[in-house]
């Protein structure tokens, strides 16, 4: 039977690819046609397999019945499965589910938006307070700076006025001689003595 099978195979291949250069022989085993029989198989008597027409007939009938049943059951199951799958994806329950999910999603999004709004209000309040505080501080600082500037300018003006007064006493080319005479006439001494009680004596021994 195997040989027959193999032969038919070879024939089929030839039909399929008549022009193929290489013929693919689907032969099982290592022996070729002309190899001698193996020693272990020398006593082998080829006995045809059991066959009885009555039995065969009965078997065939029963087998076909069996196959019918099994097929019916299989188809029943597959139908059930497919139906269930269809129900899941496109049936009424599925619609319900989808609708519910959408509803839930919408509700959650709405809640989220509400929360965001709340937080936003709080945040804006906070930021407003901070900016107001900053502005206030800035304004105060500016005022302070201005005041300091004014004080500084006043001080400097005072100094300028003082200097203007003192300029009248400066030495110039005209009063140079007079001033020299005056200086030579009036020797000044910055020496003084002080004792432990804090009494200052300006008259000292002058060399």
């Amino acid at each position, binding site marked *: 039977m195997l040989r027959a099978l193999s032969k038919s195979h070879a024939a089929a291949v030839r039909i399929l690819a008549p022009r193929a250069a290489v013929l693919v022989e689907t032969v099982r085993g290592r022996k070729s046609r002309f190899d001698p029989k193996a020693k272990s198989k020398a006593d082998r008597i080829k006995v045809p397999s059991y066959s009885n027409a009555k039995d065969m007939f009965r078997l065939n009938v029963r087998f076909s019945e069996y196959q019918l049943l099994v097929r019916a059951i299989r188809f029943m199951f597959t139908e059930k499965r497919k139906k269930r799958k269809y129900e899941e994806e496109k049936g009424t329950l599925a619609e319900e589910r989808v609708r519910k999910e959408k509803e839930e999603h919408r509700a959650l999004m709405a809640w989220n938006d509400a929360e965001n709004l709340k937080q936003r209000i709080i945040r804006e309040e906070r930021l407003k307070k901070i900016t107001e505080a900053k502005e206030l501080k800035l304004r105060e600082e500016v005022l302070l700076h201005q005041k300091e500037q004014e004080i500084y300018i006043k001080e400097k003006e005072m*100094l300028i006025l003082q200097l203007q007064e*003192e300029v009248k*006493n*400066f*030495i110039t*080319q005209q009063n*140079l*001689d007079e*001033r*020299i*005479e005056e*200086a*030579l006439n*009036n*020797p*000044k*001494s*910055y020496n003084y003595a002080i004792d432990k009680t804090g009494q200052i004596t300006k008259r000292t021994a*002058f*060399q």
Partner: protein
Amino acid sequence: MPRYDMFLVLKSMQRPETAATLRRIVENLFEHGAMVRSMENLGERRLPYAISKHGSRHKHGGYFAIDFYSSPTILKNVLDNLERDIDVLRPTIVKNNTERPPKQCHGVHEKDPWKIN
């Protein structure tokens, strides 16, 4: 302009010569663009130690102080001229800081430079 004090030790001379020296010095200052505020005579006295200058040794000298305002760039020139003047034994020019108010003492604990206020 910053304010400077010039302290001079002049050779002990007769009055007209001292006057002439002082006049010369002040005119030199005027030439360099200074404003002379005042001049003081601190007396003719014995020097604390003998000063040898311009080839002679002196034991007495006249002390004078001149207060002036000027640009700091002229000081080098003025000092050079004074050094060369044979009547001047010891010229000194020093900055006068009396117009600046003294810094407030914050005590031992210094202000943290990284702290605001």
